């Protein structure tokens, strides 16, 4: 598959934007400026952005706590991410939900929950809906490595396979589930081998190479769209920050982090784009400036937005 220049640049832009948003979230959190917890996906940008870019309008995406930046290519405004963390009424949940649990069905983005991986079955349900309504769409869901231990993961895969649904299941294998290393989570070396049990295609890919991610997930998406059923894709990466803002992750050996720092998905991709001439120094500067402004505006928007009104506390529990 040849990835055209426009997409290459978009992949670059969204990874950079996503990282900048998360860096700002972290500093605001450390300054005590936001009431929300933070879950950072630093180091995993190639997977979240690459997967999200492989989708089309009308497709759905189900994120976990750690991949809010996957919403960016699907059209989520960075302002919404900050407003959500600030608990402001201008956020998609109007301040009712915290952290990365926001969404927008008009953009195909589910508003997910903390319970993992509850949106694997839900995503399979969206795929079922597309099939029943004869819509040419695909449902993509993310899970962490740890959450593949839960029954919901397996039930969703089985369901999607039995009914041959247009679904793509992505596992971000970042080697840890909170403090629990994969060695205590599972006996399989490759999570993608779990697909065998459901007679589903499964593959393991380099999750730090955005082009690899994009190409492989695009292939699975196209296959699903073509009525050829679901795929499980394990993208291998590393969680470069603690589980959440308060976790110093003392349980992760420094050498492991050092090894993965060299595989930074953005640094490497930028180098490659420069080398092949897709990206110039000037363009990098321009992107940096644009991103800085976008993040500034988004933070200002969140800061200036009002909190929800107490009077509205009990509204909207039902339609």
């Amino acid at each position: 598959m040849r990835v055209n220049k426009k997409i290459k640049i978009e992949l670059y832009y969204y990874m950079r934007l996503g990282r900048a948003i998360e860096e700002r979230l972290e500093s605001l959190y450390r300054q005590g400026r936001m009431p929300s917890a933070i879950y950072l996906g630093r180091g995993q940008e190639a997977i979240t952005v690459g997967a999200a870019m492989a989708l089309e309008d009308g497709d759905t995406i189900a994120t976990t706590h750690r991949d809010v930046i996957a919403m960016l290519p699907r059209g989520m405004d960075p302002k919404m991410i900050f407003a959500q963390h600030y608990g402001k009424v201008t956020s998609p949940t109007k301040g009712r939900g915290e952290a990365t649990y926001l969404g927008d069905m008009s953009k195909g983005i589910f508003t997910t929950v903390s319970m993992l991986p509850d949106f694997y079955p839900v995503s399979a349900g969206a795929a079922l809906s597309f099939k029943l309504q004869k819509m040419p769409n695909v449902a993509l869901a993310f899970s962490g490595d740890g959450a593949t231990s839960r029954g919901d993961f397996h039930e969703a895969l089985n369901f999607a396979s039995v009914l041959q649904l247009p679904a793509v299941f992505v596992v971000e294998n970042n080697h840890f589930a909170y403090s629990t290393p994969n060695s205590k989570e599972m006996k399989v070396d490759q999570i993608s081998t779990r697909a065998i049990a459901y007679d589903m295609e499964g593959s393991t890919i380099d999750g730090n190479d955005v082009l690899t991610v994009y190409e492989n997930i695009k292939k699975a998406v196209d296959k699903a769209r073509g009525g050829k059923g679901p795929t499980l894709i394990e993208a291998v990466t590393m969680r470069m920050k603690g589980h959440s803002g308060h976790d110093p992750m003392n349980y992760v050996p420094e050498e492991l982090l050092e090894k993965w720092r060299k595989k930074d998905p953005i640094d490497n991709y930028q180098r490659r784009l420069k080398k092949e001439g897709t990206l110039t120094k000037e363009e990098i500067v321009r992107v940096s400036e644009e991103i800085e402004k976008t993040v500034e505006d988004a933070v200002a928007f969140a800061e200036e937005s009002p909190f929800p009104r107490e009077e509205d506390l009990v509204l909207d529990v039902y339609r």
Partner: protein
Amino acid sequence: MSTVKEKVNATNKEAQLKQSSYLEAISLALWEELERDDRVFLIGEDIGVYGGAFKVTEGFLDHFGEDRIIDAPLEETGFIGAAIGAALTGLRPVVEIQYADFISCGWDQIVNVAAKMHYRSFEPVPIVIRSPSGAGLRAGPFHSQSPEAWFSHVPGLKVVVPGTPYDAKGLLKSAIRDDNPVIFFEHKYLYRRLKEDLPDEDYTIPIGKADVKRFGEDISLITYGAMLQKSLEAADRLISEGISMEIIDLRTIYPLDIETIIDSVKKTSKAMIVHEDIRTLGIGSEVAANIADAAFEYLDGPIKRVTAPDIPVPFSPILEDAFLPQTDDIVHAATELFNY
């Protein structure tokens, strides 16, 4: 100084005392029970190397080893079910659910397997499932719930909701020694905020027994969990209005200690219930029904409830504060009831 503390001090006048937080009290109970009975083991997510999301079991792995402090895979159904199996075959597992909100992921094993075992097979299921519940930490709809009432509708389970460090320690020991499945909710807002003197020697607090934390004349206020502290605060403020509150801490909500409640209401003739859980079919409903049933003729006013509204726990600070019953709300309701 709170009356709770006065009371503990009084009962332990001679004993050697040590200040412990609510969290430390729970850690101590676990530690001492692990030392006392080698059938006891702990299992849950991130409880070993990491010492638990709230650090309740910090240092346990080094001391007790991997067979007794088990880091479970992320699968609540799996390890709750496994704990039940271990309980049926001679061990006494204590399960940690990282946040009470996630207990629903293991719901079926708890309510169908553990709860209904003894009634049919006469086999005990000595398992404790302990978990941090409750709001107030800006943690949003999925890390703040108070799911205690769900389990108080399931015969075969016992549901414990301690409101003080002293009670938490004594009740957790009782839970571990109990031959029935006990669901033990620890209010996470209290973990590091509430401290009191604990005796050094081993003690237990009976499950199913409420405690009168403050004696009073005018109104019986029935509460539990984190609302105990707000209720005591309200009672302090009401003294200056000339209103004398009797504060009953349920400590166990299933089975309910109806006798203690009724005795108090017969004395005061007025009753109110305060809980953080939402209103509809919260424990307040059951307490009110029991009072209406057994003390109707003694009542000199409506049975009042101060609870959260029937909505999910919202995240934004303004909303969460409005969601939670506050001391002002308790004072207001008590004053109205007093003047009724």
